[in-house]
Structure formats: C-alpha cells, structure tokens
C-alpha cells in the first residue's frame, strides 16, 4: 500500500496562492455576533475587500480593542465566505469567523455589538491546497477546529461544480460533548457526509475524532488502497490530535494538510515570532530541521513536514 500511494500522491504547494492576492487592512462592520454553542461565537463581518480574496485556510488578524489590552491582534480562520450574489462579476460581501472564548481577547470580541467596527488585517497566510485530481476530501475537526474546515468544504463543493467530476467530502467532527458539536448542519447542507464523535458519547461515536478516523479507515471505504491516490486528509484541532493524525497518515502514506495554531505577533511574516519546526527537505537526520513561520508559510502545513516536540 505504501509504495503505490506514494508514487501517485499529487504534489502539493506548486502554487503559493497567498502571494498572488492582496492583503488589506481597515475597519469593517460587524453584522452578526451570536453564541452558537457554549462559549462559541459566530461573527459575520461586512468586508468585501477581504471576502473576495480570501481562501479556506487563510486567516484574519483582528484588533479586538483600540487600546493596549490586549496589545496584539488575534488570528481567526476564515470560517465562511458569504453574501455571494449569483451574478458572476459581483464580489463576495461578507466574511465569517467562528471563535471560542478562551481569554481576554476573545472575551472582548464576544462583547462586541452588531454595528460596531472592527479593525482587521487579511486575508493572511496560505490556504489549503486542492490537488488537481482530488476526489475525496476527508475533513477532521476537533472542537473549534471546524472553523477553517467549513470554508474548505464550501470551496471544494463550489470548485467541483462546473466541469470537474463531483468531489466527495467526508467530515468527522469531534467534540467533548454534544453541545460542543459545531457546524454539523452547515456541512450537511453542502452535501458532505458527516460523522460525529464525542468524548463523553453524548452523541454519535463515543471517542475522539482521531479514534473515529482510525476506525473509519478500516470499516469505511477510505481504506481501499487505490482510492488514496485522490484522497487528502485536512485537519484542524488541538495539537495532540494533529500530531496523531500526522502519525497515522504518515504510516499509511495518506497526504494530509493541517491547519496549525501558535502564538502570533505580526501575522505577516515580519517578526519571526511564530516559528514552527519543520524537517529540512534535503535533510535526513532527526536534528536536521529549520523553522517556518506559521503566519506566512502556514498556517496550513503538510502533515509530514512538521516536527513534533
């Protein structure tokens, strides 16, 4: 299985899309800021300048307060690009983020009122790659990790409409408990096949998203070797989950792209604060690594290039 898959694996990152688009900074209006789950909010912003350029996997760098509390911007993945009109020439209007309140910045964000303005920078970073021959996309979300994956599902479904053969999107949503399962409906509306895993078994599979993915590998038709060729795993979630997915996909030679998090400073590649260890392409040994920037070289990385500590 390993050999044949490797030979046929599509090459990722031949085009760095973010380098072709313009980044934008400015104030945008908040259209929606609603609680969609315990401590989880969906925020819609009127930002045509960004919406029309953004791709799934990219992020917005948001200044949550005018003063210095907090001082730095906060990054949030593009969750949904909406307000699209059916006329081809018209641009997309709105951009959405999905966020969880975990600290000062997200708390401040959650207190914002509809109609207020928000200073954003974006779209930043590299989006997910859709290899030419992609047939099945396996999206694995852990907790708030669904945020960029819904945008990805949208992008895949949209890109597969006109001429290309319809692409299949399989989604696994993992969460601690039933109430924290986000976006199930959203994926279903797009025609994705959705499986849910909860750690407490309150709905769906009882276990983590990774457990469910592992089981799916053998029981569902993910597992047929020839299919891997045109399948890619896309995952976003806690580091421990991503690490496990990286190991599993590496062992089985499944191409996988991960959307990583980390502490950002500038968000544009200037401060070198968001370093992540990656294997040197030329390198062999364990110690041969270099640092990449999450914000600029990522936040989407190939699973097998990341060095986990």
């Amino acid at each position, binding site marked *: 299985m390993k050999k044949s898959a490797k030979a046929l694996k599509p090459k990722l990152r031949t085009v760095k899309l973010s380098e072709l688009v313009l980044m934008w900074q400015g104030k945008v209006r908040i259209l929606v800021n609603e609680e969609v789950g315990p401590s989880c909010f969906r925020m819609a912003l009127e930002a045509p300048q960004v919406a029309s350029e953004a791709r799934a996997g990219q992020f917005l760098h948001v*200044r949550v307060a005018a003063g210095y509390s907090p001082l730095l*911007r906060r990054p949030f993945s593009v969750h949904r690009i909406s307000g699209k009109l059916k006329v081809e020439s018209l641009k997309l209007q709105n951009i959405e983020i999905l966020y969880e309140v975990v600290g000062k910045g997200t708390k401040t964000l959650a207190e914002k009122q509809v109609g207020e303005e928000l200073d954003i920078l974006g779209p930043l970073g590299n989006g997910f790659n859709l290899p030419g021959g992609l047939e099945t996309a396996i999206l694995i979300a852990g907790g708030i990790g669904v945020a960029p994956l819904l945008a990805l599902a949208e992008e895949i479904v949209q890109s597969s409409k006109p001429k290309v053969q319809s692409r299949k999107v399989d989604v696994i949503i993992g969460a601690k408990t039933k109430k924290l399962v986000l976006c199930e409906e959203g994926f279903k509306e797009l025609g994705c096949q959705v499986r849910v895993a909860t750690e407490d078994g309150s709905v769906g599979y009882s276990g983590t998203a990774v457990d469910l993915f592992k089981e799916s590998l053998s029981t569902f038709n993910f597992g047929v070797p020839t299919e891997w060729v045109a399948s890619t795993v896309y995952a976003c979630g806690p580091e421990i989950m991503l690490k496990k997915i990286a190991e599993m996909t590496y062992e089985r030679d499944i191409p996988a792209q991960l959307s990583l998090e*980390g*502490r950002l400073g*500038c968000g544009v590649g200037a*401060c070198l*604060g968001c*370093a992540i260890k990656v294997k040197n392409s030329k390198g062999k040994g364990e110690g041969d690594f270099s*640092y990449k920037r999450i914000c600029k070289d990522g936040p989407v990385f190939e699973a097998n290039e990341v060095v986990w500590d």
Partner: protein
Amino acid sequence: MGLKVNLSVKVAGIVMRNPVIVAAGTFGYGEEYESFLNLNQLGAMVTKGITLQPRKGNPPPRIVETDCGLLNSIGLENVGLEVFIKEKLPFLQRFATPIIVNICGEKEEEYVQISERLDEVEAVSGLEVNVSCPNVEKGGMAFGREAGAVRRLVSKVRKATKLPLIVKLSPNVTDITAIAHAAEDGGADAVSLINTLLGMAIDIERRKPGLANITGGLSGPAIKPVALRMVWEVASVVELPVIGMGGIMTPEDAVQFLLAGATAVAVGTANFVNPRAALEIAQGIEEYLVKNKIPDVNRLREYGVKWKKQN
C-alpha cells in the same frame, strides 16, 4: 494646514524625509509590509539583525504578550549576510528610503567582517551596531553592558567601514550614559536606544516559563517611561544624535521622545498592531508641529536638554 513645517532630519549623516524609522526586527526585510504602505514614505528602514552566517533562532514559543508589552526571544533568526545581500537587499533598494542594516556578531571579528563587506554595498546607507544581542564573545549580554567592551568594538568597526555608524544600546545597564559615552569615544556617529528590557513570563498552568528560552526582551508601551528617561539622560550628555525608541505607538508618544532630545524615533512593536503605524506617526508629528506653530521638527529636541534635575 496653514503652516508648512519641516519634518526632515539628519542622523549620522543620513538624511531622512521625516524622523520616523521602522525598528530592527519588527519590519522583517521590508517586503512583508509592502502591501500595507508605501515604503517610500518612511524616514528610514532598519533591517532585522544580520549575522555573518544564517541563524536558525530559538525554539518556540518565542513570543508572549504581557500587560501593555510583548516579550520576544527570536534569537536573531536571519538569512545571514550573503543571502541578505543577494536576496533581500534588491527589494529594499527599489525604494528611495535610506536602508540601515542592523548587524550583530558572536565575536568582535564578525562585526568587523560584516561591516567590511557591507561597506562595498552601495544600497546600504548606514549600519546599526547591535551591542545587546545574546551570545557574544565577552560572555553574552555583558558585552553591550560594559563600557570598555563597547568602546573597543565600536572603534574596530569604525576602522572597517566608512558607513555611518549607529550604536544600539542595551537598557539593561546601571548607567546608560556611560555606555553612550563609550560608543561616542569609539567613533559612533549616532546612538539608538532602547533595545528591549530583559523580562520573563511564567505559565502558571504548566508551571513553566512562557518562552522556551526562559527570558526574553520586553518591548511595547510598557517600557516607554524607561525608554524616555534613558533617551533624555543620553541626549543630555552626549554630542551625538539620538534615535529614540521603546513603546512608541502614537504621534504623541513620538513627540515625547523628540522633546526628550531624540533627533529621530523608531517604531517597533506598533508595526505588529498597525502596519501603517510609522506613517501615521509621521503625519501626526506634522500635525502637532502645525498646531503648535513650530516650523521645524528639529526644534523639539531643544526642550529636553534644558531640564535639569534638582537632586
């Protein structure tokens, strides 16, 4: 805006259209910010610290936010001198803005080699000699923290290049005027200050330091009062022009540094919050001058030197 005011300043022989510079390490190699602003409108650009050989930098986490501040321990990750000249400089060269290269070495000899090499490179307007980087010959930090070492280093670099020399001072010292005097004696054309204050953060959930490297450099609004005090102290005693920095976020902050005695200011952490910060600060300084009927920005630094402490 009735009055036409002069914003142009001259630091170490380098003429700048306005006194607002982007600080070393906070503006990458310039290209990262090109989408957001017209780089021609900056007073000057200072590059990320360059070393002779490329450096990987420190392991992550490399940054932590603090109250009104940012701790960083990037560890001088950079592409190295030759790659910088070949791959980064050509981009910067396209702009009319003076390019100042921030240089750092592990030994005196490295500073000398870098300076000699950059002396031949036409695009470079000046060097900022970073004497507060870790891992240097005389026992790390102690290097830029000891007057004798600074004097010796600066005089060696002075012999290696005809480029204007700006010496960037560490604030982690008992008496920064002594270090500034040493830089002056060594042959510096200007001094810039402050670099970051050594600080630390601790993650109480994991009971570990917030930075992989344990300690890091504190920048941002938190350090402004300390920076301002040091700029005033140094500007009051040395003849050299001073580039003031540390926590400048607004035009008002910048004016404070100019009044304290700085000839120009540099904007660091603010770039991360607002990529257009440097331009907006330059504009705001102009508005301040117009509003207060001060025809020339160079007048501002006449204020601070007159203030004398009683005790």
